[in-house]
């Protein structure tokens, strides 16, 4: 029975290591800490695996990973997490600053990457799970432990910021297509 549990873990949970690392990497934004957190979260997953009753293995694992990450953020970057509460005053500037930085790189992917890095962690989490992992609202809600309505509003607010970061590019493209004048 024990051996089959090992096999089951490998079959059901390990394939989602990539999603786990990607989420952690986006949440803590630092490769070394993300590695440590994921390794730690996988061991916690092993420990709790006996309590996993089937269902969505990816959401189950990602919930463990995100909880580790948010606990870590609370401990090491509490100021940044608290920023979310007065995001209106802080983040637009941060988005702008990061945009200016990546404007040097000049490419869309770089702008998107830096804009995503500076939006509040809860919005970033929803956007990463939706746009990179392609998860449904229900799955995201299960990972983040919030209601589907909250998922929708976090996505809306996160995307609003990101649209802002992309807007100049989109306008330029539209201008080029129309062959517009000045």
């Amino acid at each position, binding site marked *: 029975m024990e051996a089959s549990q090992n096999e089951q873990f490998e079959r059901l949970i390990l394939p989602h290591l990539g999603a786990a690392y990607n989420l952690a990497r986006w949440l803590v934004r630092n490769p070394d800490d993300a590695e440590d957190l994921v390794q730690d979260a996988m*061991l916690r997953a092993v420990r709790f695996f006996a309590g996993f*009753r089937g269902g969505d293995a990816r959401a189950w694992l990602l919930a463990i990973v995100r909880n580790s990450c948010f606990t870590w953020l609370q401990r090491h970057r509490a100021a940044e997490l608290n920023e979310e509460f007065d995001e209106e005053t802080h983040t637009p500037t941060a988005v702008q600053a990061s945009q200016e930085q990546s404007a040097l790189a000049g490419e869309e992917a770089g702008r998107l990457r830096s804009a995503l890095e500076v939006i509040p962690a809860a919005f970033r989490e929803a956007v990463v799970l939706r746009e990179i992992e392609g998860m449904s609202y229900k799955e995201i809600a299960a990972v983040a432990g919030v209601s589907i309505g909250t998922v929708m509003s976090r996505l809306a607010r996160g995307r609003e910021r990101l649209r802002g970061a992309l807007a100049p590019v989109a306008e330029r493209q539209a201008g080029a297509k129309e062959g517009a004048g000045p």
Partner: protein
Amino acid sequence: MTCEESTRLLPGYFDGELDLVHTLEIEEHVRGCAACSRALEGDRALRSAFTRADLRFAVPARLEKNVRAAVSRAMPKESPSRKNNWQWAFATAAMALFAVLAWRLLPITQQPGPNAMAEEAIANHIRSLMPGHLSDVESTDQHTVKPWFDGRVDFSPPVENFAAQGFPLIGGRLDYLGHRPAAALVYQRRKHYINVFVAPAPGIADGREPRVTSQGYSALAWTRGAMSYWVVSDLNPMELEEFARLLRGER
């Protein structure tokens, strides 16, 4: 539909998460509203930018190797000796204790309160009304619905058909509530659907929660025998209360 409503629901529309009625209403609104139509265009542009940018971080090979090694070390070994069994029993007990403590202590700030849970139950109810979402097992027979949950949830929800009292059972579904799997039983009263969410509530004392109403739906919640129940419907409060009494066995 007002612009305010449309703005709120637009992400759901864009992500294909809305029911048909709201989808049609949004489409109609967007046709006549430049601001909402621009926002939608912006979301589309954003999504294609995400697709082109491919922002996924690849797992470092070293991490994958370390995790595999750590996992096989941490997993119980095959045919352990008697002494190992003892150690494992002890370790498992310690972990179970840790898990229980973590479960009880950590969620103080994270665990949604009863009101948030009721809100979530209402959101689940609304979602369940979308085409094809209402039930995973369609049956008016409690002896079909009850076994269906075996192997899907680690508890046995009480399933009873109240057709004789005018609340026929029409199916069951697996759902999530408060971040954990919950059994959802679907009943009907005339044209109204009623979702009953059942989930274990270890260590929670028996009792009832105040009624929560939101968006024209009511939620009743109570705990009995270490199981929590949420009943959600757009049915009038009196009949919903009557149904709740049936469920609680207070005839």
